């Protein structure tokens, strides 16, 4: 079932889009089992870097307007040229570190952890079924990118529920496999945090 050799070469090849694909699969997702903390902190770092990438673009736009207003032409334009380059290099370096850390982590996995990790990375919703589902709701055809985006988000959504259900299971002193009562409690908790979209029932203030 698990093919560690194949998986290691996937991560080993630092060049090419595949490696970035395997790395960026980790972004925002928790690592399995006990290896959660390191993966989580690095994934949080990546999220922060993503947020930082948005900001330079906005500040640059702001600086464009300042340029015309205050007349600080040379320094502002120099800043514009340097900043995106620096941020790009910094981000590239962070990716490199991320890739190396992931390689070290995955190389130290046990057999069972490798199996689970492979399932985590490879499992996906079938694009055909998702496309059929969306088209049956809209009545019109949808582009391929929409299907890709929707399956990706749905996988993250499923992951959030399973993680919360595992928290509930542990808190209640039960063991996996997860039972429906854990899933329902997980949904109830996520609903109170507004992480589950719901347009059917409006919440009134004071019952």
């Amino acid at each position, binding site marked *: 079932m698990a093919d560690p050799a194949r998986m290691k070469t996937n991560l080993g090849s630092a060049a090419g889009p595949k490696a970035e694909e395997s790395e960026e699969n980790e972004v925002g997702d928790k690592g399995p089992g006990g290896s959660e903390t390191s993966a989580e902190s690095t994934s949080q770092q990546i999220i922060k870097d993503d947020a930082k990438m948005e900001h330079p673009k906005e500040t640059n736009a702001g600086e464009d307007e300042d340029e015309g207003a205050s007349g600080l032409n040379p320094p502002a334009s120099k800043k514009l040229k340097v900043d995106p380059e620096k941020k790009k290099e910094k981000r590239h370096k962070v990716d490199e570190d991320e890739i190396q850390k992931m390689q070290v982590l995955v190389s130290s996995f046990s057999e069972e952890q490798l199996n689970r990790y492979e399932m985590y990375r490879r499992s996906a919703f079938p694009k055909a079924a998702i496309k059929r589902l969306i088209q049956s709701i809209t009545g019109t055809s949808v582009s391929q990118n929409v299907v890709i985006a929707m399956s990706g988000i749905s996988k993250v959504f*499923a992951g959030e529920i399973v993680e919360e259900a595992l928290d509930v299971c542990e808190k209640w002193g039960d063991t996996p496999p997860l039972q429906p009562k854990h899933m329902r409690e997980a949904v109830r908790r996520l609903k109170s945090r507004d992480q589950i979209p719901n347009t059917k029932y409006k919440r009134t203030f004071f019952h």
Partner: protein
Amino acid sequence: MAEEEDDPTFDEDFDDSGNGVEAGHGKRKRLFSKELRCMMYGFGDDQNPYTESVDILEDLVIEFITEMTHKAMSIGRQGRVQVEDIVFLIRKDPRKFARVKDLLTMNEELKRARKAFDEANYGS
């Protein structure tokens, strides 16, 4: 209680006492049973998750997709679902937002790589 009113799907799980046919959502054939089992194992559940749990999760995912689709149809270009609408709806959730951006970026890269590869083959 308010929660039970909000979740009619779960009431159906209560009613179903294992005869294999559920009312309402369950009438539809199970779309993602195999994939969801692998996914649950990957996310930390047991290697053989309970069928009832997989069913609950499938109903939740289908409801999620339905909600997102309806919301996307109501914003931007009405009646159509576009990627920009999905990205807009997901903007508050950091995990999902980052994931969507990565997926779309990677898709572009792969398309470019495939195109360059095909052109190289065609040339030689």
